[in-house]
């Protein structure tokens, strides 16, 4: 069963089509990554799932947790928007209690609040006002506000943006725990590395349209083993002029070479050896980052 189903959904703002005929299915219990350049329609799609925006009249259907969009109960969804804010004058505990009540909880409010605060090492701040918290702490509190009611579906818009490595790890572990508890996670990110490591499925949206959708393996399989990862002693200049190499991404110690269709890795290796001592040579599939750049980079 799918936790989220979008069927041919469009959203237009004045003359701009933010989302164009988008369909997707998020299997229950999965972690589903939403990637795409800025302004591609990720946030608009998430807001439509949250019923903050309504799709264009006449566009398709949205089903959430097995129910029609209009009847979807947001109380079973947790949402962390990209642009975050909290009532600065409220105490942390009161704020979380407010969100719990807003999601329909009436009894045993203290237990989940205490548990989440302890888990994200914020227990000492429970009775402090939000305005006294650091930015990182506020972001963690915002995350707790999204998950404190134990949602079945968790929608996170750029959850790791602006977090330090320790907070990122805390959040990543919490998300994985929620998935282990049966929740479905749908999150958007610009961090391709994180998406590769965490997501069971990845969807890429570009200019409002879906351009990739599936497991990481299936997406990479579509591109085949067309990438060479090489290290050559010296400055590595002139790699673009190698035979059969279409594009070079130089990371310093390593370089990734995108081969043109039908190019022979063996001939590239021969040409490389002629230019210096080759210390690393690997034929591999493109990374998600590389696929992202290939799709989203403006055509020259």
């Amino acid at each position, binding site marked *: 069963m799918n936790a989220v189903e979008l069927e041919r959904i469009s959203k237009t703002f004045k003359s701009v089509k933010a989302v164009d005929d988008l369909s997707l299915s998020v299997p229950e219990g999965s972690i589903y990554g939403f990637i795409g350049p800025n302004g591609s329609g990720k946030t608009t799609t998430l807001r439509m799932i949250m019923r*903050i925006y309504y799709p264009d009249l006449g566009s398709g259907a949205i089903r959430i947790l097995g129910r029609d969009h209009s009847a979807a109960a947001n109380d079973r969804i947790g*949402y962390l928007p990209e642009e975050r804010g909290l009532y600065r004058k409220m105490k942390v505990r009161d704020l979380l209690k407010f969100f719990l*009540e807003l999601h329909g909880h009436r009894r045993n409010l203290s237990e989940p609040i205490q548990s989440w605060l302890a888990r994200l090492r914020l227990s000492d701040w429970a009775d402090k006002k939000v305005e006294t918290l650091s930015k990182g702490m506020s972001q963690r509190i915002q995350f707790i506000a999204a998950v404190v009611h134990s949602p079945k579906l968790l929608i996170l818009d750029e959850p790791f943006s602006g977090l330090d490595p320790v907070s990122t790890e805390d959040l990543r572990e919490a998300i994985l725990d929620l998935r282990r508890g049966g929740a479905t996670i749908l999150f958007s990110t610009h961090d391709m590395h994180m998406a590769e490591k965490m997501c069971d499925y990845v969807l890429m949206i570009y200019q409002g349209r879906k351009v990739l959708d599936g497991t990481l393996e299936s997406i990479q399989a579509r591109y085949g083993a067309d990438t060479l990862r090489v290290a050559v002693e010296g400055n590595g200049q002139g790699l673009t002029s190698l035979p059969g190499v279409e594009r070079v991404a130089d990371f310093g110690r390593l370089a990734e070479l995108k081969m043109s269709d039908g190019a022979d890795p063996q001939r590239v290796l021969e040409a490389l050896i002629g230019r210096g001592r080759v210390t690393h040579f690997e034929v591999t599939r493109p990374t998600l980052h590389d696929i992202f750049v290939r799709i989203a980079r403006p055509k020259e």
Partner: protein
Amino acid sequence: MTRKTIVIAVREYQAAIRTKTFLVSLILMPVFMGGSIGVQVLLRDKVDTTDKRIALVDMTGRLATAVLADAERRNATDIFQGDGTARKQMQPRFVFEAAALPGETTPEALQALTLELSDRVRKRELFAFAIIPADAISRASASAAAPATTPSADVAYHSNSPTYDDVRRWLTGVLTKHTHEARLSDANVDTKLVMNALSPLRVDNLGLVSREATGEIKAAEKTNELATFFIPFGLLMLMFMVVMISAQPLLQSVLEEKMQRIAEVLVACASPFELMMGKLLGTAGVSLTIVCVYLLGGLFAMERLGVAGLFPKHLIGWFILYQCLAVLMFGSMFSAVGAAVNDLKEAQNLVTPLMLVVVVPLFIWFNVVKEPNASFSVIASFFPFATPMLMIVRMAVPPGVPAWQPAVGALSVLATTVACVFAAGRVFRIGILMQGKAPKLRELIGWMLRG
């Protein structure tokens, strides 16, 4: 009403009443509103008691002596309050000096004297001077003979302080009295007899006589003119203050949620309509708190002053109903403005016409109190944005209004409130997540109509 609406309303109420701004507004608003009256009362006795020297040129030769005698009498008694050691001068003394033309009465001589006295006023030797023409006493018959001509002033009063009118008014009364006496005397009429005959009558202001349940006829009660004026005014100002303290801050509250990016989290948990209704109900709760504080405070003060009987207990129910509707109606508009704009500066452009609607009753309340059942008052009190304040004003003036009018007024305000909340809900839903350029009035109307 959903549970989410109640949760939001409770948070909104607690957030509002726990702020220092609320407490300060609660105290300062009546201080500011009543301040101007209080200051005037306090300063009433703080008058300049320096002597006012006035020169009197009496060309009739018959009035100056009487005026000077009256001034002496006034200076000796009328300007003091209290007795014994508590006796205190409350007004300045009017010290008159008689001035006369040095020689023949010619226009040139009179002009020279007027100039000389004017110079003395400029040098502050005199406060003012007055010239009584020679024909001042006989002038009445001349005016009666030629009624078509515009009569010129009988006495010329000159001063350098046009806004200080006490001397001129006192002099007018005294000169009128002595001129009447002189004219009656010239006509060989018994002055005392006529003055007695012309003494004014006192007309009492009474209510209506009614028959009680026992069949007994109840005598009319004397109208308390102070109460019939101040009670409606007090209720009007109370409702205005409550709207300003509770509904107007909704704009800032919504704007704050928008600017601090709280709105998106909230509309993910509750629909924009639930969110706005929650905020409105919380605000209505705040307004009820304010009303309770002020009404109880007013009752306590009136009891201390021994006028608790004047407290309009029969109007409290209507007042609370109208006040809640007013807060919901104006609150929905303020919250829509808060949702539509991006900062307080942008809000000012939209708030100005809204504030004009709120203050309309303050411009016309006096006419309504004077004639609460005149066509103008009735029509004005059925204009829904003015109904809450003006209907209460009309009801507070005895004998009140026909019973159907407050009920119909409340229904029309309720209908307007529902329409306002509905339209504001649409603006709120579209505007709350919108960033960038503020919408123009035309766009706002489009949001309201099309959603």
